[in-house]
């Protein structure tokens, strides 16, 4: 293997048979390159997917009021169900073991203006816990706090894009904006990984909203998160007892599917994860397919190369080359070429992936990558199969009688 003379012989052969060298080298380099690009793009797709679907807290349960569809205990069907502040207190009191965060949400659209700029945004009147449910990230200032709720303050936290629309380059913190007919003081600016729409909301204290709306205590929806330790089964059990509790409290028939709606994100999460799993399988399948195509490619080239050399190998044997030295020469040459070009393809592929970064984000591919272990293993596999594919015809060529090999024109 480390015979200097043999290496010299191999380099000579390689440099004087450029087409052959190029063909086998190119096949391996291309195979690895495509493998890395496809695998990396697949990973990029997965990145985007995770960002899209796994943005909100995965342990959240949403409660929406609806209209009953069955008469029950003297009530007619089609009765409107409403939530109010007492429901929040009841949940807190009855399910302390399960509960992590709890917040109401009252959504209203309102024309919002600052100086000459105005636009219609959705305000969400919420409790401080909402920050954790929505995974809101504060960029400047603060979120709604307990005092805001107690004092029913007219403070607002605006989304990054709201700030951009209304304030341009001005600092929004401390400024007053008009929401509907009320003036609110901006105390914070937030961003959200969930996308542009999530950054066009305005958050205000829910008690303030209730004060504005004739001092009522109505709530649009309730969002809560459960302790993660509960797991999927625990969450379902929690959801069931919550359902039972609320149907009881709001006097809804137990079989009625419409009085109250529950949306449990663990189900969504499970689906999303299953989808992500399928995506992973597709990515792996594409990678494997490319690799197999590469293996077949290099095998073909190797068979062709050895076939083309049959006569030369015959001459070498007539001059005293042993079968072993013939096999060794063919293999050493092919492994050398495939190794060099394999790693060339590897680094080229990684370089291209790195340079893509965020450029393909609008095609749902973000930060494509391949872990270096996978890339190296794929390269080694291709080199190995190249060697095996070269060994079989080399072995056969070495055992052909030289007189037959010499006859080969």
């Amino acid at each position, binding site marked *: 293997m480390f015979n200097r*003379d043999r290496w*010299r*012989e191999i380099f*000579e*052969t390689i440099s*004087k*048979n450029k087409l052959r060298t190029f063909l086998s080298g190119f096949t391996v380099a291309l195979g690895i390159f495509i493998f890395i690009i496809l695998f990396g793009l697949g990973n990029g797709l997965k990145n985007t997917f995770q960002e899209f679907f796994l943005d909100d807290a995965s342990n959240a349960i949403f409660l929406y009021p609806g209209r009953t569809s069955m008469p029950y205990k003297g009530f007619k069907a089609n009765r409107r169900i409403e939530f109010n502040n007492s429901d929040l207190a009841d949940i807190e009191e009855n399910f302390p073991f399960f509960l992590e965060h709890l917040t109401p949400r009252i959504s209203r659209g309102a024309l919002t203006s600052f100086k000459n700029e105005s636009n219609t945004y959705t305000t969400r009147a919420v409790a401080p816990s909402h920050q954790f449910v929505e995974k809101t990230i504060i960029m400047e200032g603060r979120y709604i706090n307990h005092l805001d709720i107690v004092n029913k303050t007219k403070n607002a936290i605006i989304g990054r894009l709201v700030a951009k629309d209304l304030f341009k380059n001005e600092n929004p913190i401390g400024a007053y904006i008009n929401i509907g007919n009320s003036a609110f003081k901006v105390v914070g600016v937030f961003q959200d990984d969930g996308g542009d729409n999530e950054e066009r909301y305005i958050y205000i204290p829910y008690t303030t909203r209730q004060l504005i709306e004739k001092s009522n205590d109505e709530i649009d929806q309730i969002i809560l998160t459960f302790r993660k330790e509960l797991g999927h089964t625990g969450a379902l059990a929690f959801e069931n007892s919550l359902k039972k509790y609320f149907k009881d409290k709001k006097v809804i028939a137990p079989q009625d599917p419409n009085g109250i709606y529950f949306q449990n994100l663990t189900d969504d999460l499970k689906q999303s994860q299953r989808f992500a799993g399928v995506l992973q399988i597709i990515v792996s399948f594409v990678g494997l397919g490319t690799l197999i195509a590469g293996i077949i490619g290099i095998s073909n080239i190797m068979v062709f190369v050895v076939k083309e050399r049959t*006569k*030369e190998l*015959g*001459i*070498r*044997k*007539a*001059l*005293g*080359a*042993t*079968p*072993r*030295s013939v096999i060794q020469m063919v293999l050493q040459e092919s492994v050398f070429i495939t190794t060099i070009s394999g790693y060339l393809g590897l680094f080229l592929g990684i370089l291209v992936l790195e340079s893509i970064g965020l450029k393909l984000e609008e095609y749902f591919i973000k930060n494509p990558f391949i872990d270096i272990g996978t890339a190296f293993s794929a390269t080694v596999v291709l080199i190995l199969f190249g060697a095996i594919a070269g060994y079989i015809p080399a072995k056969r060529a*070495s*055992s052909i*009688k*030289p*007189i037959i090999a*010499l006859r080969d024109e």
Partner: protein
Amino acid sequence: MINIRSLHKSYKMGNSSLHVLKGINLDIEEGELVAIMGSSGSGKSTLLNILGMLDVADEGDYILDEVPIKNLNETKAARYRNKFLGFVFQSFNLINYKSALENVSLPLYYQGVSRKERQAAAFDYLDRVGLKDWATHLPSELSGGQKQRVAIARAMASQPKVLLADEPTGALDSQTSYEVMELIQKINEEGNTILVVTHEHDIAQMCKRIVQLKDGVIIEDKKIKQVLASSYVQ
């Protein structure tokens, strides 16, 4: 140098078998220049291939320089070929991507001779066949006669005991043929044993002994008065 006793060889052709050599007995002394003649199908090339260990006999004895040649596997045959024999083929069989010098030094590479030594030796042999100015040329840049002279230099480079030439002039015009034969005669005069397979009478007349083969048996084996090829070369 070479002793052959009742050598048989047949080839399988589908269901039937073709008996090519039907009991050959032949003794060749050191320093002889022997022409093996015969029409095509007479078995002369088969005989040469067996002598050259490129092919194996079915039965019979073959002793080369007091070494019995039998039960050869490919590795052993390769070593013996490298040590004992030099080949010259009708179609030259030079490696086309190697220069004349590299072609000549190839047998020495398989003998394990160091690079410097084998290049010096190869250059020396190229000089002896009159091609030292063509050392760096590829076979495609040489004429037929020049190619065959490179092939002869390559065959001689490993200093073999026997030089086997299979129709060495078959692909050459007569003028070039005589030049090649002159070279072969010169090598023979230096004491080397040479076997030439040919079907051309004038080439055979330039050897010292003619063995006539017909249908797998020797029908005539006679020593002749050698015609010097130099008398034809202008």
